[in-house]
């Protein structure tokens, strides 16, 4: 126990000061701005109370962007979880050669998301992108990866999965390393097929790691920006416009800083709620077993 001394709180000041400047002040300013109608071009600020919030919550565009966000979020996380888990299991089986493979498989994650997105954009560009050019030489007419509303969503989901699957793979692989081999052997002797071993032995043992990866990725993906911005810019139309892209449009294209701040606050509330729910879920499943 640290004995409380006078003036001990002074040691908090530098860190707290830094946090306040970098975190609290911009947050507070954004909340403050959200109550104003503030067009950056004319520099005129007029107080409208909850006007921005009302506008946003009754706007079709906002709800559409939320739906798009949900589709892309769950699509991405679902895909990268399944593939990441499969890869982790494969690595687990491989043993010695695993090390080489795991490094190679991890490469997409090391690259900055923006760079990866640019690279993918050139791969997917219509007609002269790598994918299209290859398919066309075989006489297959590919869909418009980035220009068709359905395929644009798929491309964005694939891009996110390409970048973040290695992360999930690594976390689950680490979890698998901690698994007691004799459990699997006992299940083998008990007559369980590989599928059943997976279901009854491996997955239950990995539940904490699984919940962790899924919740972290879900939260991240709700705040998705760079990949979508580079790949499709939210397009075509509004097909891949998530909440964050819409916020960007409002703030930096239309210069409606007040409305953008309000949307930022709404996003914050949503992600916080998501975090709390997942946390509670995690506690009840995990702790609940700890009777």
């Amino acid at each position, binding site marked *: 126990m640290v004995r409380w001394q006078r003036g001990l709180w002074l040691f908090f000041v530098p860190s707290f000061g830094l946090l306040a400047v970098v975190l609290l002040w911009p947050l507070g300013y954004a909340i403050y701005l959200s109550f104003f*109608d503030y*067009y*950056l*071009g*004319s*520099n005129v600020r007029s107080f409208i109370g909850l006007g921005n919030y009302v*506008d946003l919550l009754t706007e*079709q*565009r906002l709800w559409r962007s939320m739906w798009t966000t949900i589709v892309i979020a769950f699509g991405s996380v679902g895909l990268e979880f399944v593939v990441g888990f499969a890869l982790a299991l494969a690595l687990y089986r491989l043993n010695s050669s695993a090390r080489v493979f795991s490094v190679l498989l991890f490469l997409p994650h090391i690259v900055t998301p923006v760079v990866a997105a640019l690279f993918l954009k050139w791969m997917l*560009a*219509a*007609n002269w992108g790598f994918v*299209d050019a290859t398919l066309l030489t075989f006489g297959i007419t590919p869909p*418009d990866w*980035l*220009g*068709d*509303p359905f395929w644009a969503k798929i491309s964005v989901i694939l891009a996110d999965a390409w970048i973040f699957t290695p992360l999930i793979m690594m976390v689950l692989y680490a979890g698998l390393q901690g698994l007691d081999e004799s459990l699997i052997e006992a299940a083998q002797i008990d007559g369980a097929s590989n599928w059943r071993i997976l279901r009854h032995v491996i997955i239950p043992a990995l539940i904490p790691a699984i919940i962790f990866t899924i919740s972290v990725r879900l939260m991240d993906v709700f705040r998705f920006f760079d990949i979508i911005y580079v790949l*499709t*810019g939210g*397009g*075509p*139309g*509004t*097909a891949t*416009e998530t909440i964050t892209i819409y916020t960007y*449009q409002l703030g*930096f*294209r*239309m*210069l*409606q800083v007040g409305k953008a701040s309000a949307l930022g606050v709404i996003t914050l509330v949503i992600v916080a709620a998501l975090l709390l729910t997942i946390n509670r879920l995690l506690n009840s499943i995990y702790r609940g077993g700890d009777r």
Partner: protein
Amino acid sequence: MITAMNRRMVLRGVAPALAFAATIAGTAAAQDAIRVISHRQPALEYYTQQMVEALPEGRVTTELMPIDKELELASITMSSESDAIDVLYLNDASFQRFAANGWLEPLDDLWEKYREEYDLDDFPQSVIDSVTYDGHIYSMPILTNTELFFYRKDLLEEAGIEPPETMEEYKAAAAELDSARTAGTIMSLKPVDAALNEAHWYMNSIGDGWFDEEWRPIFNNAAGVEAITKLKEMTEHAPRGFTSHANDESTINLQQGLAAMGLQWFTRAAAMDDPEQSRVVDQIDWVAPPGGGARIANDGFAISRFSSGDKEEMFRMMAEAASRESMREGAQYAMPPRLSILEDPALAEQYRWYPAARAALEGGKAFPAMPDFLDVGEIVTRHILRAVTGEAEVQAALDQAAAETEELLASRGYYDE
């Protein structure tokens, strides 16, 4: 003991910090070249190069990028009143907005001062009007641009089709020439600038235009819906990826023979005959856009009000680039807004597209003269694309666009009494 140690440590830290700061400041001071940003197209590449050559070496740096990016960069910079940009390219639509925001330096005095030296009366009144806002000149005119209708005369001749004069003929010709290797027509539907240009044409030739006199949107009326429906139908003959095609991509499509015709800017005409880039040298011909109503633009360069450099020097740089000699040379890329050059008959002989350009000038239409048209464009192009890609019905998409537009303009004070 502690205080003495602290003092020494502070001093030991301050000295190098000061030296470091001095070096930075020194390098910064030496780096006060004039920073010019511009849209990137052949004419502007030429004119910005003229600016670089107008002043001693190293005095001018230029950055060219697609127009949407350039405007975004300028908006963000100027809204925070930063001096990071000195001179910027603006077309008529963006010019209004920036001038209204008070972001541009008025040029009246400098205009007067250099009127004789650079023969600034050579600009027609309509051009000067287009660079004037609220009674003040804010921009140095640099080019007049019109949309032209490009077409492969060899392919049309082979199919026995006459160059289209109406939108129906255009559709028929595009459908006829649409094949696996070559798309019927280019379409530039990337938001915001390209899509807005393309939609502007349809909205004027088939629809009733964008706004009524009170600035209420009318583009979602029956005629407007038909215009966008026709636009959507035309995309059946467009190369894949058209939702992300801007002027660069469409130009390449024409040059590489990947499309047979379509709407593009005058400034891209010369590129068709450039043997280093084009496979269709001498095979492209031009007429005025069928149905009329395509965009006319007057572009220029303006000085940022927040620039910390020598504004007179910048003005002289721009004036040099806009001089008669420079524009005579630049005539191959864009229509120079100087009377003396426009009336030169040798031009029509030298450049094959000039006759079409003059015809286009007569039938064309500029963007609505309101500062916020580009912001309206942000809204409208998004919704048009939703309609084009099938995510929404045309009427519903346009209605929503109209609603959001009215909301926007109301917030900008357009409907105040």
